[in-house]
């Protein structure tokens, strides 16, 4: 049982949100390594690269929904085809549309649907869930 995440990926086009999450991760000190992507296309390329080169995948991917270019849904549609047993996705959004929550249930890769921001307590909770699963 680990008491820290090894690697997490965040995909969100909003830079201040990413900076805030970075501060929260630093303060919480519950993750060894993390990467932020403002462009979901780049995130996909990175994940593909990890898969192709048999590198360690992140434990979780935090995904925003409403982004220019590839939206969160577009990302999930491609992501789910990459391989079996992919890292789980946490949807992290400011959307209050119940329809978004409903749609997220259709993706088996989505573990949780949450409203921003990610706080220390939530990281601890997710770490606990991951350790128990």
């Amino acid at each position, binding site marked *: 049982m680990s008491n820290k995440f090894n690697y997490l990926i965040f995909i969100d086009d*909003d830079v*201040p*949100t990413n900076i*805030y999450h970075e*501060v929260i991760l630093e303060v919480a000190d519950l993750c060894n390594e993390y990467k932020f992507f403002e462009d979901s296309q780049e995130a996909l390329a990175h994940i593909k690269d990890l898969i192709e080169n048999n590198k360690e995948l992140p434990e979780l991917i935090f995904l925003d929904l*409403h982004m220019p270019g590839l939206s969160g849904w577009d990302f999930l549609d491609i992501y789910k085809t990459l391989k079996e047993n992919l890292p789980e996705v946490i949807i992290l*959004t*400011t*959307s*209050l*549309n119940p*329809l978004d929550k409903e749609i997220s249930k259709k993706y088996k890769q989505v573990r949780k649907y949450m409203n*921003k*921001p990610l706080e220390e307590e939530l990281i601890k909770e997710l770490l606990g869930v991951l350790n128990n699963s």
Partner: protein
Amino acid sequence: MTQDLIKNSILNLSMDALVVLNDESRVIFWNVKASELFGYTINEVMGEDIAELIIPDEFVDKHNFGFNRYMQTKKSNILEKVIEINAKHKSGKQIPIQLKLSHVKDGALDFFVAFIRDYSEVLKKNDEILDQKKKLEEYIESNLQLENFAYYASHDLQTPLQNIINFSSLLDRFTRTKLNDKEEKYLDFIRSGAKQMQTLINELLNFSVIGNSELNKSNILLTELMDEVLEVVQLELNEQNVILNFSFEQDRVIMDKVLIKQVLINLISNSIKFRDENRKPFIELIGKVKENKHLFCVKDNGVGIPEDKLDAVLGIFKRLHNKSKIKGSGIGLALCKKIIEKHDGEIWIESELGQGTSVNFTIPFI
């Protein structure tokens, strides 16, 4: 003679035009309704070829061909069926009709009976229905767009606002000890202002979405509903030392649980918010049955509402108190009103300044 009179009376009272043709397609009977429909008197049509009277010019050849073919082969595509075609009025104007044609042959008797009905009103009504259906579809579409707009607008407003809240929290966390009293106060203003705006956006979104969405009604056990309501308001009740009692005459109500829960939370929160500091706050929620309706009453011993403001408080953005005194968006009661009216119920307020307020609402039985 009497028999003929009865027959003629019946035939002329018919709501449909009735035309009888002989085996040469000539008129041998023409009732009153036929005269009304086609504009010819009986004298004008007797013995005349029907093709020259009421068949539109472009169909005359087709009619003659079909009639002759039937007389020779007894094959027909239109006999004994209700068909919809255009006929020609004496004025030359075409009129849509429904026609049922039958062939009677008994010994020497050989004739055709046609029942004809003016179809233009039906077509007009069909057009009107289609038109209304189209308008309804457009309305639904525009409502959906409005709802999506509300979600998108709220989402795009939330993002920068969330950043203000996030970073003022970080500033608070990392720099509070270095700030003087004034600076601390400024930071608090930023945070509380942004949080207030966030509440406002959420409530506005609720208000606009509830107005456009369908109710999701089911048979709800009120004690279970109250458990969920208490989950939300219990902390506030405890903090402000407020006693809440509730009793229900009937424990099941058909309603949209999520929305009525929202109503009860809003009303109880209001009672807590507008408590009178000079006495022990008390809230009573009573559910009764009255004239095929559920009647609910949320009664408090709070500060009360002036009589001339009673109607206004149910309107959107109506706040009777200064923002710094009592927090509120001015949407809560308007939202309650909208939800109750969507249930075909009524909501009204009784209050006495300095004594307390009672918000009453009804939900009709299904």
